């Protein structure tokens, strides 16, 4: 087995406050104005992208921060979707309770997988989590009494007291709020001692142990948190979607999130967010080119890995810096 890390992230870059602030303000304006200025379809795409942002944040925690190559992300997402939808149907409480339930169930499974995964590293961890993800998809498709199996599950509308959410535009403020909440949570985790211990484990487990960090605990918790965030994204899914089918919860989805995180820039939260938005948009735009979309998608992946593996933003940052200062 190799001791080279499976993934080491881009070095941290200090934000340049000027352009970043402008960018953030612009993003805020777009975010607020969206449902007013555009059609329900655009808002639907925005809702989907916001869910992908949260999924990427979850993957960031386990791969970007802690360096554990987990390929089971879609499974936790699916657990969150089903658990929150079933809870929403069963009990007449406000929807956020169901969302929390979904996140907790997913998180619990994540802790369990994290414990099982303690002995594994790198490629073996990736393959084991991949196998778990496929097994979970099989469970979604075959546990007829709970998930309705291959027929898929209808998701009842989300209720917040007297408000019932019946359209994308209605759901959007809530989806946006929860996404911002998750971004805040991820940033907070990243800056906390827990986050530092994650990164220490990623850099070198031996050194981390020497510094007194409980490596096993850190690894298990990172899995649990990552799964809980993915499960929460599942709850967000139920805010505006009315149906879930096991076909959407397999390796394809996990790979999509992984490529979003890597293309955005592995190890940076901004990268995870940016990757989600950029790649999510690319994926929806490729629907317009049915004949070539697989080829284009694959080519994009290959080109990024060849020339911009550190991620889109690092690549753009480097080019801007080069343009300013010359080679």
């Amino acid at each position, binding site marked *: 087995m190799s001791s080279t890390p499976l993934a080491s992230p881009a070095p941290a870059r200090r934000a340049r406050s000027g352009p970043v602030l402008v960018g953030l303000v612009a993003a805020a304006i777009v975010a607020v104005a969206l449902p007013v200025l555009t059609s329900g379809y655009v808002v639907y795409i925005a809702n989907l992208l916001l869910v992908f942002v949260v999924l990427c944040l979850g993957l960031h925690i386990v791969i970007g921060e802690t360096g554990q190559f987990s390929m089971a992300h879609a499974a936790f997402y699916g657990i969150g979707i089903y658990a929150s939808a079933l809870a929403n149907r069963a009990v007449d409480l406000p929807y956020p309770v169901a969302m929390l339930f979904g996140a907790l169930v997913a998180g619990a499974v994540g802790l369990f997988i994290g414990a099982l995964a303690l002995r594994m590293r790198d490629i073996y961890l990736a393959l084991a989590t991949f196998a778990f993800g496929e097994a979970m998809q099989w469970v979604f498709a075959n546990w007829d009494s709970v998930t309705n199996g*291959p*027929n898929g599950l*209808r998701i009842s509308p989300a209720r917040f007291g007297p408000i019932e959410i019946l359209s994308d535009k209605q759901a959007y403020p809530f989806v946006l709020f929860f996404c911002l909440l998750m971004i805040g949570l991820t940033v907070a985790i990243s800056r906390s001692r827990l986050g530092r211990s994650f990164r220490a484990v990623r850099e070198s487990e031996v050194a981390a142990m020497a510094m007194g960090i409980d490596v096993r605990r850190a690894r298990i918790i990172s899995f649990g948190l990552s799964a809980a965030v993915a499960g929460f994204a599942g709850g967000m899914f139920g805010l505006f979607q*009315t149906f*879930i*089918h096991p076909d*959407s919860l397999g390796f394809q989805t996990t790979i999509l999130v992984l490529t979003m995180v890597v293309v955005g820039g592995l190890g940076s939260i901004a990268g995870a967010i940016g990757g989600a938005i950029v790649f999510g948009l690319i994926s929806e735009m490729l629907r317009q080119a*049915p*004949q070539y*979309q697989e080829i284009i998608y694959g080519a994009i992946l290959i080109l990024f890995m060849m020339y911009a593996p550190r991620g889109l933003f690092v690549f753009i940052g480097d080019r801007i810096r080069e343009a300013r200062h010359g080679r």
Partner: protein
Amino acid sequence: MSMNKTAAGVTLAASLLIGAAAVAQEPGITDKAIKIGIFGPLSGPNMAYGFDVVNAAKMYYDKINKEGGIHGRKIEYVVEDDRCNANDLVAAVKKLVEQENVFMLNGGSCSAAVVAAKDYVVRNKVPYLMLNASGDGALFPPTDYIFGAYSISQYAVGGAMVEFAAKQFGAKNVAYINHDDAYGAWNLEGSKKDAEVNGVKLSVESINPGINDVTAPFLKIRAANPDAILLVTYARPAALLIKKAAEMGFNKPIILSVTGTASLNQLAENVGKDALKNFYTQEVMVDSPGGAKLKPIYDMYKAAYPDLAAKPDHPQTYMPYGIPSAMSLVKALQDAGPNPTREKVLAALKTQDFDSGVMAGRMQFGPEQRAANRSTIFIKYDGTTMSPLPGVFTSRWTYQAK
């Protein structure tokens, strides 16, 4: 301007506005055109189920336009790729309804995926006619807005297969091989009533559509000593099972459902003529693919898409399935009169009953019936000749609210 001209101008403007207002409440309709949103799998692994079906619907609409349109309005269509999965189908539908503001939807070849759009279509009150999806999950219980199963209702497939085996071969013990997906669940459900009435025992094996080695399911089937095998699978697993049956010397009747017939000629090539000695296949079209009764459709395709028709594998086998759906849409628009609204179109659909000339049975909707086609016929195929058998087979399954 003189007073007369002004008055005339104002009156004209007013009457146009009033007339337009009646129609303008409805999205997607002007006095020149009606906008239809078409979607289907135009890419990806399930492209063969929808790419040419969409083309068939388009060419039918083009033909209607050439003949003058519907009450003076031309059909304008926008096409989206649904990639045969729930998320993309919903995105396609929302784009068509919200961005393109279509009057009604005509799309969907993948049954599990179309169910995902059900709630949205109903909430937004958009008339939705499926293309060739069976879509039973969205048709039962019936809604006011969704009409489908122009190809065949999967509930009918299962029952018809059992009924045929019982009536044609007097089978009392039948092996039923289906898939562990939505289709499989529906067609198995549909088979139960007919099995009960005919006193037929079903030995069921549900396999994954991606299966590579069919040894295990086939052995179990053989051990049950059935009088006939009902293959309610897609084309590839069906071919693998027929081959395996031949290898193991199984010589009782093998009956393939309509879901498994991608191309009978290709099947014969794939399994060899020796495997088809006691082989029957279910069909929903009025003639075998390429037969005389369907020639006008194939000629229409060649004229509309000469470049595609020159390529191998085109038109794809399911191409004619686009016609009954498009016909139904056009008929509903015609019956809704010169000032159609969505409500009028829906009312017209609910009483539709016509012979498409493409499907063996009539397309029939009813006040509570949203699945158009429930009739199938059977053909004996020995690798070279197709011999249709007499009789139209359907299923006794009826919807029970849970």
